[in-house]
């Protein structure tokens, strides 16, 4: 067989082996075996360089599997194998050479009496993977062709080993990645943080084939343990080391703390700890312990374990930070939601408050909003307002809700008064600094949140109101506290949350404003009413003036013909015989005319008042003058007159009209006392808030006015008398009104009647304050008391 084709066949075989799908170990064995056969060499061995790059270990032999017991190693530089590795050069050695036997001692066992040793480095352009050693019984050399063949084989070996290493590496990476994938999946799963950390810890232990793992996270500032999770029983010796890891870890990349301890039974435990570093104030450590070898022994952790643990630590930090952020976001969202709820309630209540200017309704809306579950949801709420004149805080309105209460939706509830009101009208707190929080809230214009009632905080109220925790918000308008709102959750025992209290303070400001507006509005309304009244009265007096001028014009027109008719009737009467029936007819004409004339006179007296003559007069004198007019009449009816006249300032008045008033009153009194009696006339001054008044009382002993007609006495044309028009009191009242005075009636059934005429003394305020002094018939004070 020629050499060339033999070599070609060999190389073909070699290529086939190195590209085959059999395992790397077998491939190496086959390559080495085939080479030995091809070169007719006794023994071919492959020594692999270990990871430490210092020891070359026998891995493959052309004679078959390498027994575990026949482990053969060479250090770098030791023997031909070590030298070839160290120099990356071919080394040839012969038995006869000095020191060869000693240097290559282990080989004697494998090939006794060897003569030749040839070591070839197995390497590619970058790395040295091992050494190929050829041994033979003969002393032999290698031709150039052989050397070339061997070189090719070493390249194939290098490539195979490299592939094997790469594959091993890949497998490891894949395994690691799949673990990390699992962990990552777990970390991003939507499970509770505690459960998740437990899973991470156990996975970490399993990946590193450790007996157990532990996670410990503390708050750096407070020292408080935030998270503590473990898988497997942590050996007690390791426990105290963990918290120190963040500080004690070796300053390497990655940082770690590694070591071993011995337990009471003499067993050695290994541990590996990496620190966890968070962005915030948290810190902690992740620990694995007792790495278990395939044989079940505890063994130390290697750098790969460190790298993996470090990666896991990073994942945990990430996951925790995410979780914490999420928790924060969630709590923020929750707070936000509560705030939105409260602000919605506030808006709803505010809107309702703008629908009315009635104080009562405003208070109802406010209280309903405070206790409604969709509102601010307090158990109780009380509004107290400052009473300026008495310098006290007065209970105005209060409401509470009971557990069984069913509430309609807020918007609807705000249109109704609260179901359960609190009786607070007798709450009265002096505005002094020693009178508890309610007074202080007004005086200092600030809120009070009392958590545990101390004695005295509600001292003036203790009999009305007890609560352990309560809140007081002042109602401030234009830098003035107008009142306070008091709330509590005493009944349900819930704590007062900050959000509703915050909203309450905003609401208190608005409430203060709308209540102040309501107050101003009601003042305006009162003024407006007064103005309307004055206007009405002016219109009425205009109407009356028009009416009276019309009536007086008509009355005058009627009077002339009446005089003629009556006058001629009288003349006819004188001409007619006494016995003639005409006489009766004429008398009827005369009497009817007389009656008409009398009626005319009364109507003219009533309507003719616009012709008035004001001057300064003495009321006592007016009374005296008028008494003279009726004196004879009174004497004739056996009526005694009692005068109690006090000196009075002069009045600006029409004395003739006032005489008419008292004339009418005296005449009434006289008529009431047909069987005799006493007429008492008194005068005195009355101090009222709008000025000084003169009062004149006219009392009779005529038994009083029957209740059923009392309300009618000022009605024009009403009369209990059988004669007259009944205009007397009506005229009197009208005249007094024109003087911006009042007539009051005190009726004592069985005794008599007192008419009290009050007239303002200050003259120039009259026109300005016209609306006040005037007494329209409807507003007339007519007490109906009596016996």
């Amino acid at each position, binding site marked *: 067989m020629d050499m060339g084709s033999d070599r070609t066949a060999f190389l073909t075989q070699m290529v086939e082996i190195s590209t085959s799908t059999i395992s790397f170990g077998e491939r190496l064995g086959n390559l080495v075996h085939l080479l030995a056969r091809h070169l007719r060499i006794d023994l071919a061995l492959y020594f692999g360089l270990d990871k430490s790059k210092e020891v070359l270990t026998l891995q493959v032999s052309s004679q078959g599997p390498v027994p575990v017991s026949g482990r053969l190693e060479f250090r770098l530089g030791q023997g031909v194998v070590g030298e070839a590795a160290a120099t990356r050069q071919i080394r040839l050695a012969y038995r006869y050479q000095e020191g060869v036997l000693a240097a290559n001692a282990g080989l004697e066992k494998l090939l006794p009496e060897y003569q030749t040793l040839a070591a070839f480095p197995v390497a590619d352009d970058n790395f040295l993977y091992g050494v190929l050693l050829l041994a033979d019984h003969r002393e032999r050399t290698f031709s150039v062709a052989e050397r070339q063949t061997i070189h090719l084989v070493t390249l194939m070996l290098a490539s195979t080993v490299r592939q094997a290493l790469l594959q091993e590496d890949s497998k490891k990476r894949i395994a690691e990645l799949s673990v990390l994938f699992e962990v990552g999946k777990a970390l991003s799963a939507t499970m509770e943080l505690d459960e998740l950390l437990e899973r991470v810890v156990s996975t970490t232990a399993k990946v590193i084939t450790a007996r157990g793992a532990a996670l410990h996270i503390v708050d750096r500032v407070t020292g408080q343990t935030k998270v503590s999770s473990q898988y497997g029983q942590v050996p007690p010796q390791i426990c105290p080391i963990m918290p120190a890891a963040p500080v004690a870890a070796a300053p390497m990349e990655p940082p770690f703390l590694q070591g071993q301890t011995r337990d009471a039974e003499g067993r050695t435990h290994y541990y590996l700890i990496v620190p966890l570093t968070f962005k915030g104030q948290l810190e902690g450590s992740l620990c694995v312990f007792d790495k278990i070898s395939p044989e079940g022994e505890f063994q130390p952790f290697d750098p790969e374990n460190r790298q993996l643990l470090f990666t896991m630590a990073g994942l945990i930090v990430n996951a925790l930070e995410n979780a914490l952020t999420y928790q924060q976001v969630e709590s923020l969202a929750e707070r936000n939601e509560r705030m939105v709820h409260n602000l919605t309630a506030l808006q709803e209540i505010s809107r309702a408050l703008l629908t009315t200017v009635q104080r009562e309704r405003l208070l109802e809306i406010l209280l309903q909003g405070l206790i409604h579950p969709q509102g601010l949801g307090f158990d109780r709420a009380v509004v107290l307002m400052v009473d300026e004149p008495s310098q006290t805080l007065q209970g105005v309105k209060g409401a509470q809700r009971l557990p069984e209460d069913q509430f309609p939706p807020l918007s609807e509830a705000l249109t109704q008064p609260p179901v359960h009101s609190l009786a607070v009208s007798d709450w009265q707190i002096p505005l002094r600094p020693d009178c508890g929080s309610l007074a202080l809230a007004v005086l200092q214009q600030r809120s009070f949140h009392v958590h545990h009632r101390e004695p005295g905080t509600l001292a003036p109220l203790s009999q009305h109101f007890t609560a352990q925790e309560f809140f007081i918000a002042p109602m401030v308008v234009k830098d003035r506290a107008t009142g306070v709102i008091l709330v509590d959750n005493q009944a349900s025992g819930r704590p007062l949350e900050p959000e509703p209290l915050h909203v309450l303070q905003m609401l208190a400001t608005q409430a203060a404003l709308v209540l102040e507006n309501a107050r101003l509005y009601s003042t305006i309304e009162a003024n407006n009413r007064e103005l309307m009244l004055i206007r009405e009265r002016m219109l009425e007096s205009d109407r009356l003036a028009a009416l009276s001028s019309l009536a007086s014009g008509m009355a*005058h027109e009627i009077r*002339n*013909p009446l005089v*003629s008719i*009556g006058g001629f*009737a009288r003349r006819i009467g004188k001409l007619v015989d006494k016995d003639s029936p005409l006489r009766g007819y004429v008398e009827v004409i005369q009497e009817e005319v007389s009656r008409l*004339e009398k009626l005319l006179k009364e109507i003219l007296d009533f309507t003719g008042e616009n012709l008035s003559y004001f001057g300064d007069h003495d009321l006592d004198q007016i009374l005296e003058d008028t008494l003279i007019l009726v004196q004879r009449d009174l004497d004739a009816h056996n009526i005694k007159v009692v005068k109690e006249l006090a000196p009075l300032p002069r009045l600006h008045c029409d004395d*003739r009209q006032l005489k008419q008033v008292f004339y009418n009153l005296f005449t009434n009194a006289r008529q009431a006392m047909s069987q005799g009696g006493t007429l008492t006339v008194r005068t005195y001054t009355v101090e009222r808030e709008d000025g000084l008044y003169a009062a004149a009382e006219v009392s009779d002993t005529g038994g009083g006015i029957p209740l059923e007609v009392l309300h009618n006495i000022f009605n024009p044309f009403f009369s209990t008398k059988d004669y007259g028009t009944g205009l007397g009191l009506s005229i009197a009242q009208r005249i007094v009104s024109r003087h911006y005075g009042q007539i009051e009636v005190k009726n004592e059934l069985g005794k008599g009647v007192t008419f009290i005429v009050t007239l303002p003394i200050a003259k120039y305020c009259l026109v300005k304050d016209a609306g006040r002094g005037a007494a329209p018939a409807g507003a007339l004070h007519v007490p109906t008391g009596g016996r």
Partner: protein
Amino acid sequence: MKKILVADDEMAIRLLYSEELKEEGYEVYTASNGKEALEIVEKVPLDLVILDIKMPVMDGIEALRQIKERYPHLPVVLSTAYGEYKQDFATWASDEYLVKSSDLEDLRATVKRYLKD
């Protein structure tokens, strides 16, 4: 025979008053307004003048003023349907103020008081 002037724009009143006064034995002249009344006062030596207040052409108040200017001693009685001016008659310098009434007793009594001698 005493001479009386009755001035009133109402014919019926003039007739009633003059019938009544003639019956009492007086000589009665009549006028339907203040101007006519003044003309008669100028012509006739009168003893009493009765003037209505509200009259056309010249009212009773003006006629009163002019009569009193020339004949301050001639008594003048105002007779009117307006009772409410009664308080002011003195300022108008009249001697008497009578509110018209179908009962002429007041009129007769007043006239008698001024013309008794």
